[in-house]
């Protein structure tokens, strides 16, 4: 475990001499990450269906003494109102992931359309004004702007989705616009004009798919951020409201009694990490595989 300095040339890999087996191994690494991520995600989604179906307990109704530690009956213990934490954690899977998915899809579509529209349009004033508004929105931290919008809309998950749509589209728009400007210069777009393709055909069959491949890659990593953001907003009491099983709200709910009972806080937190880590592995695996194919 030595760091060899300059002068001893053995640390230095000359580009191009890397043997193929190493490349083959890197491809496998990306695949392992991808498979692990997919496995974790599918497992979480399956548990999200199975646990609420098979559990003998009720999600929102007290069933036993508060703060019972994890045991054979209550695997994750009971929370401050005597509800089964195990059931509540897995009841929240589809709520958390679903809201996050909607919160990514709406800005994704909106931003891609606006971005491509700006890149295609010839109006300079439109581009200047819209570009400045996009920059202005992007300058705000997402969480801060979302909090401010929720101040206007009132707390709740619908407000969170609206706030995300209003703020996050600008990031996609900027990405799509930059990408569309590059794609527009490519030979294959020029070729469609030479071949006399109609404008809609060029736009929807050639420009849009090439732009959205880029924004899709961003959307995947954005999904992780949005999951954390939604849980964070609920933790602040601005998203999902208490009786609803939602990870951030559950953590916030258990927080005052953290010293007495750690389980109502830690288990929802672990579920949140589980969701994030599985997506993070998928994103990581995909990018690494893509890089391998390219090189």
């Amino acid at each position: 475990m030595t760091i060899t300095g300059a002068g001893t040339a053995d640390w230095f890999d000359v580009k191009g001499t890397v043997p193929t087996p190493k490349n083959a191994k890197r491809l496998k690494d990306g695949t392992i990450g991808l498979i692990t991520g997919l496995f974790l995600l599918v497992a979480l989604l399956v548990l999200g269906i199975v646990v609420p179906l098979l559990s003998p307990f009720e999600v929102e109704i007290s069933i036993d003494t508060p703060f019972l530690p994890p045991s054979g009956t209550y695997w994750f213990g009971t929370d401050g109102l005597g509800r089964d934490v195990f059931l509540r954690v897995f009841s929240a899977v589809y709520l958390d992931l679903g809201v996050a998915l909607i919160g990514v899809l709406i800005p994704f579509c909106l931003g891609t359309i606006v971005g491509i529209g700006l890149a295609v349009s010839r109006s300079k004033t439109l581009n200047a004004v819209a570009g400045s508004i996009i920059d202005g929105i992007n300058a705000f931290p997402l969480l801060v702007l979302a909090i401010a919008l929720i101040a206007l809309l009132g707390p709740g998950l619908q407000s969170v989705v609206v706030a995300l749509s209003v703020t996050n589209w600008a990031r996609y728009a900027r990405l799509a616009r930059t990408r569309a400007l590059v794609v527009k210069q490519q030979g294959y777009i020029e070729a469609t004009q030479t071949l006399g393709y109609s404008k809609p055909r060029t736009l929807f069959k050639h420009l849009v798919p090439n732009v959205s491949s880029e924004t899709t890659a961003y959307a995947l990593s954005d999904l992780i951020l949005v999951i954390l953001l939604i849980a964070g907003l609920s933790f602040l009491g601005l998203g999902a409201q208490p009786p609803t099983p939602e990870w951030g709200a559950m953590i916030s709910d258990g927080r005052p009694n953290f010293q007495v009972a750690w389980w109502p806080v830690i288990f929802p937190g672990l579920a949140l990490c589980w969701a994030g880590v599985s997506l993070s592995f998928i994103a990581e695996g995909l990018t690494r595989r893509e890089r391998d194919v390219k090189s």
Partner: protein
Amino acid sequence: MTATPIGSGVESAVRAQEGEDGPRPQPTWEKVLRRTGRAIIVAFWVMVVAFMLIRLSPGDPVSAALGADAAPDTVAAARKALGLDVDPLTQFWNYLTGLFRGDLGASLISGVPVTEMLRTNMPVTLWLIFTSVTMTLVISLPLAMFIAMARIPGLPYLFRTLTAIGLALPSFLVALILLYQFGLIWQVAPIFGYDPTFPANLQYLWLPSLVNCVVLVPVLSRVLYSSILDTLEEEFVETGVVRGVRWNRFYWLYVLRPSLAPTVVLLSYMMGVMVGSTVILEIIFALPGIGRELVTAVTMRDYPVVQGIILVFGILVVFLSLIGDIVASLLDPRVRLT
């Protein structure tokens, strides 16, 4: 970033800036000036967005704040006090001129001017950001350098896996666990309170900064790591090896300095995320910063305070990313600022 033809090591890359060899890149002062100009334009749009946010709200902010059963006279008086009784353009003009006079309005609840609130609470937030960035850099630089240079089989793989996990950790959960462990079990950190004087405040800030590190170090060290790998393939590094440059000069000047530029650009981009997470951290650690004021104002529906604070947050991020970009261009003159 555009590549400059490099003939004789990193010094020539640095010299190229003065136009001694290679195609003449943008002079530094011109880059800085252009970037500052763009920052000012963005700051203007930040003001516009902060202004529009409240006006575009569904329903009347004033009656929402005062409650549905407030007397019409009270509502009318409050509207007048907020300057909401004139047409939108005049409102915008009053808002802009108010900004330049340093007047951000006053709280609907307590009547305290927003600027007064900022004066007491802003330093806490700024300190938290400063200590977080410093700690992140202190951890990330040696970490990424070590993993890129120490050729231990499997280490980069472990590093990527761990950072992929770190990317997905919610900061509020990390904050709760660390606060419990350090504050209550080991009792090495205060669990609430703040001391505004300089050396004493670090005692309150190191733990929240550490939480920010858990979020930022994975992102930053990852980019720095791949950036160091890219730098190692540059010709000037090869030149350095051939010349037998002393190891500390080699690491700092040949490898680290050019690798830092993309990292600093990313750091300036991450400022938004970090400023956002300070809001949550200020609440968990009970620090009297503006993030906590923001959430209080949101729950009280105190619109002038919300407007003032998000404006300050927006301007803060614009300013921080301006600094980041300028530092990046000073570190690696090949960086082009738009």
